[in-house]
């Protein structure tokens, strides 16, 4: 058993957890973050990737709207490389309620969300797929955010200030002494080693798993696990985020990301924190509602479906039993006050857009407990430094502008090392992933990261397998690098199978049209051309 001493243990490597780790580290408080899987494997990557302007909450929840617009501005400043400042539109259709429109305009003004009307003819010219049923269009400062990138930037920044993290490290129990939490026991899932971590404070930031964490000591945190299903289209259908101007509901947001568009969502309460299954009903329902915003929706290819769990905080006075009725705000639960157990705090609810604010509140609370007077700096201090202009120039010369810019946006301050490698070995500039223009050199760089344990981790770091081929070609192209990183051929083949299986899980709910054809091609490639063994049918 390995023993570790620190000041604070943060449980959960989602946006909130990494935000807390960074904030603690910037304030000089030693902290260790423990994550049971890879960073961002839960809710922080299983969402539409929308950086809210607050417009969505402007009528129902003015506090959430205000928090969103403030954080939106802050994140565009501190995490510019993780955000594409697309802007967003709220689209009002013929059939929609004009009273709501008036309330919405008022709500946005109150929250401080800048709204500008776009003439519909202009809107149809800028976004040709937009339904002709639209009668008014309003622009707000929505943007898109890459959850993976944002989380990695947070931990890398935290590391610079002394913060530490461990992925694939699952908390087994809270360590209690005389009714106080004094640390945790955790298992390193890759080695089987047990860690005994002593700390002054344990922060439970486990998102949908929060109840499970406190339940280890017989405590309770009321969260609703609210599943949201999303569809991925293989094109950038819009250049802006498209919202429907009506009370927030299902299937009313389209978000462009790199080469694809994410469309969602739904809302169902579920039992398990990792119930990510998307069923046929969800898909049919989403398509039907999506046609309201895109008349020709059926003509567009869906490459996969996925789902995430929103950990909604159920405050005692929440009477409404619909998922969207429960507050999207967050709550900090001091278990000393609530349960008489000191040293433990849970942070629940919230949304990705406000992750930094949640982290700030938690860290303020922790700092007060530890009597650290340092103020929060996460709203001012950028997550990463921009690469030097020489690095941009060199990358563009080596790869061409399009691929170089995409790489620099992905890697930011880490790009320098990859550019040097490319200068030495130009053939490493060949693409592993043609959809997202990821080079061999970039994949090799990611594989050197000790936090990459599998091909699936690599996918989250490089977007490998997330473009329109859904892993058919890029998995093959990564073969030599995988073999080098993982050792044996058997292991490499196994990694292939795990990644293809994971991709398949997302494809099966939308298995028709061109995606079905693509899947037949992938089967032909792996089973015939590459001679992989067929798996036994379960029947």
């Amino acid at each position, binding site marked *: 058993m390995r023993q570790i001493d620190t000041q604070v243990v943060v449980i959960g490597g989602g946006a909130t957890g990494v935000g807390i780790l960074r904030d603690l580290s910037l304030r000089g408080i030693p902290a260790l973050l423990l994550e049971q899987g890879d960073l961002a494997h839960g809710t922080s990557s299983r969402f539409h990737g929308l950086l809210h302007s607050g417009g969505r909450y402007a009528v129902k929840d003015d506090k959430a709207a205000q928090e969103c617009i403030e954080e939106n501005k802050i994140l565009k400043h501190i995490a510019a490389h993780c955000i594409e400042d697309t802007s967003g539109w709220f689209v009002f259709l013929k059939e929609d309620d004009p009273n709501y429109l008036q309330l919405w305009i008022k709500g946005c003004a109150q929250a401080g969300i800048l709204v500008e009307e776009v003439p519909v003819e202009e809107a149809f010219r800028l976004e040709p797929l937009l339904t002709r049923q639209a009668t008014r269009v309003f622009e707000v400062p929505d943007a898109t955010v890459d959850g993976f990138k944002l989380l990695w930037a947070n931990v890398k920044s935290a590391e610079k200030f002394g913060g530490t993290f461990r992925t694939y490290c699952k908390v087994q129990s809270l360590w209690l002494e005389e009714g106080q939490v004094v640390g945790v026991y955790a298992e390193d899932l890759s080695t089987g080693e047990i860690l005994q971590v002593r700390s002054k404070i344990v922060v439970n930031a486990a998102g949908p798993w929060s109840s499970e964490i406190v339940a280890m000591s017989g405590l309770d945190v009321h969260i609703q696990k609210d599943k949201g299903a999303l569809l991925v289209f293989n094109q950038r259908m819009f250049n802006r985020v498209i919202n429907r101007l009506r009370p927030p509901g299902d299937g009313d947001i389209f978000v462009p990301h790199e080469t694809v568009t994410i469309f969602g969502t739904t809302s169902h309460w579920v039992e398990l924190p990792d119930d990510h299954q998307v069923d046929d009903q969800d898909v049919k329902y989403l398509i039907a509602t999506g046609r309201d915003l895109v008349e020709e929706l*059926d003509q567009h290819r869906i490459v996969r479906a996925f789902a995430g769990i929103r950990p909604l905080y159920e405050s005692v006075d929440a009477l409404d039993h619909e998922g969207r009725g429960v507050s999207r705000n967050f709550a900090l639960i001091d278990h000393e006050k609530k349960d008489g157990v000191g040293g433990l705090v849970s942070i629940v609810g919230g949304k990705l857009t406000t992750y930094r604010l949640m982290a700030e509140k938690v860290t303020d609370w922790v700092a007060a407990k530890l009597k650290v007077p340092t103020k929060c700096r996460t709203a001012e201090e950028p997550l990463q430094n921009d690469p030097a202009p020489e690095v941009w120039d060199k990358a563009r010369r080596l790869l061409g502008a399009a691929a170089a810019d995409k790489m620099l946006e992905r890697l930011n301050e880490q790009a320098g090392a990859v550019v040097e490698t490319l200068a030495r070995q130009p053939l490493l500039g060949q693409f592993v992933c043609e959809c997202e223009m990821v080079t061999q050199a970039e994949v090799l760089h990611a594989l050197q990261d000790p936090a990459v344990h599998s091909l699936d981790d690599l996918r989250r770091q490089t977007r490998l397998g997330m473009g329109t081929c859904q892993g058919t070609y890029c998995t093959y192209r990564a073969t030599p690098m995988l073999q080098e990183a993982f050792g044996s051929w058997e292991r490499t083949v196994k990694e292939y199978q795990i990644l293809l299986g994971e991709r398949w899980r997302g494809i099966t709910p939308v298995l028709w049209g061109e995606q079905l054809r693509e899947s037949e091609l992938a089967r032909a490639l792996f089973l015939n051309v590459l001679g992989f063994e067929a798996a036994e049918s379960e029947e």
Partner: protein
Amino acid sequence: MWDAVVVGGGLAGWIAGIRAAQRGKKVLLVTEGVGTLFYFSGIFDYGDVERLCRLPKHPYSLFKAQVIAQGKRFIQELCPEYVTKDVPQSALTVLGTVRQGDLMPRSMVLPNRQEQGKFVLLVPEGLKDFFPEIVADNLAREFPGWQVSVKRIQVAAFAEWTRLGKGVTSIDYASIWRSEEGQSALTREIEEIQRGSQAVGEASSKLVVVLPSLVREYFDSSRSKPCKHEFSLPVLEMSSFVPSPHGRYFAEYLKHRFIDLGGELMIGARAVGINGESSSESRVKACQELVVDSMGKSLYLKGKEFILATGGLLGGGIKVGIARKTIREGVFDLPLFVPEKWSEPQFLAPQPFAQIGVETDELMCPLDPAGGQVVWENVHVVGRMLAHWDPWTQRCGGGVSVTSGYAAAELI
């Protein structure tokens, strides 16, 4: 009026067209493109024919063993370099792993693993999607008694290109290997390997040069000079990855054979529908003409018989609409067998959707799965359009396509 109109220029369509033309029939082949030959590894898989014949409704169960054998011989007549044995033979995949196959070019057949020898993997500089270290490792593991070494070869044509870090596709390399320039470059390289081994006194051991996608097959003597048959050392050819040089040259060769036999070809044309009516004596219908969309114009093509070879899901002959609300065969609007369960959770397992297709009688005439009666008496369905098989897990893609294409041509 044609004796037969073949719809679709993939493997089954070409085989049907060539065989019908060879039998002196007036044949027209209508195709949008080259079909899925783009993905052809170079090997024809037949699978476990005896077992598959016994599966209810498997396409093999429509054919006599004799017809399956005739189809195989037909391929060998077309491509004399192809060899077959009673037991499956083995060849290398592009990863250097071993895969089985039934009918393959002689130069792909692997040597005996029990023997001892030495492989020299000849790696064309900058070859795209090819991983020499992986191939060498896999070769060494698959052939424990053999030594493996790697040698690089550069050709002048691509030197500047690879220096800039650009990859060269295997199709581009194959076109070099099939030229005089490439032949002599290879000859020199292989002689050098031989001299090198003699110098260190290895002359006695068996030396085999391994080369990705050499494509020594599909030479058409009336159009090009065939590949040099002998190098100073035996050369083992690897099967192709995509885009497949074997597929490219095979498709071109099939086209030439078809035209040379008097077949007529319409490329870039999409069959969109038909005109037909019931023949007077029964309820069975006969198709009179095919409606084809060619560069914005509609053409009406009359035929006595029609062969449907539009390639199923992958080829585009069967289209599945959003949420699977529509599942259609696009030319004749034939009734389809559609499995109840659609997919299996394991990606590489036999997938139920692969079984989708047209059910036929023994003359490959389409049947209505509901009533079992023939829908069109002069339409024959071949290849991937047939129902109740999975080419990838049953490993019989080439076998079913060749056999059904050949058998359909015999009915014309």
